């Protein structure tokens, strides 16, 4: 896709009435704000209700060169554990 419609063009496309222009301009921002607010809320709830994180159990910054501990996190992962 080449350059998408700018906000100004969006407003024009939405119609000439001022209310429609304002709505077209702010709606995506409102949705984005709601999405990110929801995401932050869920993340906060998850942190509060999860088992407390022990920072000394964290793995080293990268895996290369160090023995592995456990594995849960991939669709294609050994189905043994």
């Amino acid at each position, binding site marked *: *896709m*080449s*350059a*998408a*419609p*700018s906000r*100004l*063009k*969006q407003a*024009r*496309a*939405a119609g000439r009435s001022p209310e429609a222009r304002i709505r*077209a301009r702010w709606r*995506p*921002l409102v*949705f*984005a704000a709601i*999405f990110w607010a929801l995401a932050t809320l869920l*993340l906060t709830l*998850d*942190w509060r*209700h*999860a*088992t407390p*994180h022990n*920072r000394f159990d*964290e*793995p*080293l*910054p*990268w*895996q*290369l*060169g*160090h*023995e*592995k501990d*456990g*594995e*849960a*996190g*991939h*669709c*294609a*992962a*050994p*189905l043994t*554990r």
Partner: protein
Amino acid sequence: MAVTSVPIPAAAAAAAPRSRYRSAVQLATLAVVAWLAITWLVGLRQGLLFLVGIGYGAVLAGVSFGFTTGWRIWIRDRDPTGFLAQFLAIGLAMLVSIPLIATHPELSGAVAPVSISVVIGAFVFGLAMQIADGCGSGTLYKAGLGNGFALTVLPGFVVGSFVGALHLDRWLALGALPPIALTDHLGVAGTLIAQSAVFAVLALWLWRRRRATQTRWKGRAVYAGAVLLAVFAVLNLVIAGQPWGIVYGLGLWGAKIATALGMDLTTNAFWGRAAQQAQIHAPVLTDVTSITNFGLLAGAMIAATARGTACPPPEAQRASQWIAAIVAGLALGYSSRLAFGCNVGAYFSGISTGSVHGWIWFAAAFAGSLLGVRLRARLRLGA
């Protein structure tokens, strides 16, 4: 590509890029704050993986690197650009990943059985991704940039992949061979040569059959994007010890929500395992796939804002098309668990780490896409 006929005042056009970049920089600042918070809370590794995720999202949205669109454009217009870019990305990642995995036991490839469920799952995924105009990475990066349709697909994806994992053992009972790692049979060099040869033959075949069309991808950007994706995928492997994945994280979110709502998963063949139960009860920020997913969302948002493609106004859709989005999301989620991965986890990471299931996924999913493109036209879902 249709050019709009509405004239834009010169001042607005000149201001637009600057205000776009300013917004992008603001978002990037927020992302840096998020990165610092993640590092402080859950450690250096998760922080680095968040950055890798931002890399994925920025590249995918920045060059419109759509796996789904790449296949559709070939099927419909015989334009091989998207396909070739995918081969480049997977091929480059493979050249580094396979030798690394062979020499470092602490790094795992995408290890999945060669099962009937892979064939069925991949076929349905290939079909559904054309309906949804988004695969695993596609749905995420479009959701990140604010695309309403993708945002509607995403919840179904989460539910579908959670339920798919729930039923996985029953699907495997239909018939499965143990995982086949090509390096066990061909050695590292043999695997690299064989896979490169297959890519070369396929690329040549696609190139021969191309039709001269105006490609939607301008210039070399998509190939630069392919190289960058390969770099980030290798970093993913080196940092996390496992290759790039997307759908596991989505299923985990579903499992966490289900557990919070009171569902007992401890008896399930998949979610009841010790490692899975531990991950369900641990903070989501400690999960590798989830953190790269979050980064992907953020990176896509930033890149799309800089390009001006963020938050596209949703085209007026009929209710049936929104329903199709939800159903497609469920199908995508469910089928990708059966297939042990989506386009990223199975196709990209499977092939680039030398697992045969990746090629089976590719073939079955492409067959599904052939059907999916036709269905898309039938449902009049647009180009």
